[in-house]
């Protein structure tokens, strides 16, 4: 039974459609990450589920009950905004006990619940502190504890790690998931950080301008991006414009600019159709000279070299003027390669994806978020 179901939900603000005909399910105790850039409707989605705003069209079901007539306070769906919204005039304990008290549970019982939850998030020793005396990470955990103590089944986290520094963010990622799983919660976690979404989510929902782009496991979304937007947003991808030359059941031959030819496994496009080919940067190989066996061999000049710590990233200008980037793990990298070198570039047809040519053109599509 799904814990949450959205059916054709649309929300407009004036002319802008913040949510556009969204339909999806979230299973009980599932951890779902909503991934999207600024303005994609992520926060609006959370607030709609929480009952803070009403959708213009469509329905929200919580535990198979239509939540349309249920007020925010009766939904058992706790919203945790990016700022955490801890009540500044209450101590940590009072903040956490607020939910139970609001539901008219006796003070002793409420504080007992609060103390237990604070132990779970390892903040029981700071129960008497005020929010402004805590670090960002601690505040985040208080917000989480407050949600847990209120007896919520559904936790709605809006960029919960957004305000923290990188190291803490990495630490708290796993912590968040652990607590959610231990407490048997269903979580919707909004983020614009693809790595965060992949590490922590059971499933990822990619949102763009209020529309669902793709919904699936991190593995699926990463390896089978269904749209140019998803391929671009999740991971680091090269995009090349091409025209289908021939197609067989096993795949197609495409022509890049200046007549360069490549093979792909996709055979869903007609000959002469304009398409976009996407290849992950880390699936692109660079060698000083062609070995003669690699598929899809192209050649070009290294125009940029970026040292990324664990990887080296080369940007290569192909003989036809297109640019392609390759990420090579440090231990496999040929350190003698440098700016200005003429190199051979190749990729396996298995690792390429082909998309319909976008209406806005490639650049237009990549720039529109």
């Amino acid at each position, binding site marked *: 039974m799904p814990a949450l179901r959205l059916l054709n939900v649309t929300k407009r603000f004036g002319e802008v459609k913040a949510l556009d005909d969204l339909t999806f399910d979230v299973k009980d105790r599932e951890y779902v990450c909503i991934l999207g850039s600024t303005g994609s409707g992520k926060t609006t989605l959370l607030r709609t589920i929480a009952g803070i705003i009403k959708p213009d069209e469509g329905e929200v079901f919580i535990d198979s009950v239509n939540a349309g007539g249920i*007020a925010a306070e009766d939904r058992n769906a706790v919203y945790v905004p990016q700022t955490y919204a801890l009540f500044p*005039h209450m101590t940590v304990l009072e903040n956490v006990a607020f939910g139970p008290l609001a539901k*008219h549970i006796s003070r002793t019982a409420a504080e007992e619940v609060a103390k237990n939850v604070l132990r779970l998030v390892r903040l029981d020793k700071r129960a008497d502190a005020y929010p402004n005396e805590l670090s960002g990470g601690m505040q985040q955990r208080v917000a989480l504890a407050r949600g847990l103590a*209120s007896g919520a089944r559904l936790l709605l986290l809006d960029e919960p790690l957004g305000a923290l520094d990188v190291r803490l963010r990495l630490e708290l990622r796993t912590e968040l998931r652990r607590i959610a799983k231990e407490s048997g919660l269903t979580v919707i976690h909004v983020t614009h950080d693809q790595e965060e979404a992949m590490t922590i989510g059971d499933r990822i929902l990619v949102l763009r301008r209020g529309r669902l782009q793709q919904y699936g496991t991190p593995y699926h979304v990463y390896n089978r991006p269904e749209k140019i937007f998803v391929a671009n947003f999740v991971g680091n991808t090269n995009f090349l414009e091409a025209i289908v030359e021939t197609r067989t059941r096993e795949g197609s031959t495409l022509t890049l600019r200046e007549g360069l030819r490549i093979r792909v496994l996709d055979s869903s496009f007609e000959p002469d159709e304009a398409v976009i080919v996407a290849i992950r940067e880390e699936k692109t190989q660079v060698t000083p000279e062609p070995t003669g066996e690699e598929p899809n061999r192209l050649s070009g000049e290294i125009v940029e070299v970026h040292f990324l710590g664990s990887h080296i990233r080369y940007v290569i200008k192909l003989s036809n003027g297109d640019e392609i980037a390759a990420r090579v793990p440090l231990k496999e990298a040929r350190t003698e390669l440098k700016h200005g070198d003429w190199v051979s570039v190749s990729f396996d047809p298995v690792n390429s994806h082909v998309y319909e040519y976008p209406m806005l053109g490639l650049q237009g599509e990549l720039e529109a978020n």
Partner: protein
Amino acid sequence: MANRLLGSIMVRFDRLSSHRVSRRAVYVLAVVFLVSFILLPPILGITFKLNLAAEVLSNSDLLRRAEASIFWSFTIALSVATLDLLAGLPFAWYIARGKSRWISILDALADIPFVIPTVALGFSTLLFWGNTGPISVLGISVAPGLILVLLLHFTFSFPVVVRVMVGELLAYNTVYETAAKTLGARTFTIARTVTLPLLRPGLIAAFLLAFARSLSETGATVIVAGGFENGPVFIKNAQDAGLQGPMVLVSFTLIISSVTVFALIRLLGNRLKIPINRVYPGPEARLSSSRSVNTRNGLTLLIFGFFVLIPAIYITFPAATALTDGTLQRAISGTGIWSSFWQSMTLSYTIAVLVTLINIGLGLPVAILIARKRLGRLLTTLLDAIVNVPIVVPSVALGVSLGIFWRSFGFLPEFWILVFAHMTITYTYFVQAMAAAIEGIPEEMEETARTLGSKPLHVFRKIIVPLTKYSFLSGAILVFTRSVDETGAATAVSQTLKTAPVLLVSWVKHQVPATQSDIALGISFLVLTSFVSLLVLRLIVYRGKK
């Protein structure tokens, strides 16, 4: 037991607040109150009797006086607000940015003319500049009339500008100034091209407040006006002479024109550009030198001391005499004119308590509507404008209209007419203070509390009220002190019942045989109670901060 009972009642109310209908009912009630008690009476009252104004139009002498009085009202208000800004801005700058340890004292002193009831301020100014005043030894004295009115208005409106601008400067992020400094600009250039343009909304607000105060003030102006008439003085004189027509005409004109002028300044003020295209390195470097700054600060302090502070507190001297010459004994025993004084004080404070309670209860929902823009942007702007009308329109004009309106209900006792008039005059203060405070609380905080299972009323009790309690208190005390202090509207409305300020004006104008000591002492009692309420506020805020 009682606690549990109260608890269960609260639970019931909390539950009730979850229903859209009951929440709406509260808002509707508050808006109905706003419309029927604050908005409509001043508009309807004056239109009831507009036909009386026609008789003035045929009397050229009266008409000329009426026109002149309105002209002077606006001329004085505009010049005083401009002077306030010129003198008040450097003073505010000094308080906000100065490093001297005397600054906090100076800051408190700047508030004094603000909290002294205007009747007291009027009498104090009259004595200070009068021919027995301290500077008469230099051969300088200012007789009642236009100049004295100007001096008085400068005294009481200066602190308004200082208060607003200090707040703005303290809230202003100095990172822009630092950036400008590292780009090589001098302090004066920075102030002119970076800080002031960014503080423009504050400057406009300060100007408007000073302008409104000057336009509206009645009690003190009547005391120092002599034969001179601005709008409020004209209305008061017309009332004393029993001339209803001129009173209605000038009130009507003042109401319409003040609302128009305000709307114009609001609209055009935002288009006003502070010239920043050019920089004058030489002169501005000289103006930034420490010598120029010291000269400017010295001059500013001198203006403050001589034109604001000393005239405002000069009243203490005759009041001190009253302690020893037997006046105090007569006052305490309540003999002669003092029996009516204590009746008036009781009346003033009874009205103030009632007005404060009503305005809190019915102002709160409106403050929420405004702060949270519950009615959409257009209606919120309209609501906000309506709420501001009572402080924009001269209170005496408002009083004339309110008096006409409420007296048309023959069954209403005068006491309630006075209460209603004070309610209208003071309505703005609490709503404004609370709307600003609620706006300062992120809406997310309320939303999160709701998703934690808290009903709307519960959110209000547990989150909004605790977080806004200081604004709540200061708003309430502002309503209270303004109500006690109110002279213009009370003068216009009162027939047999006299509030303390109205009574004191009649003492000063020698409509009742009162000695200088009587007047000074009577005024001191009013000042004292005003100070006590301010002290209570400061104490509560201080304890809260601790």
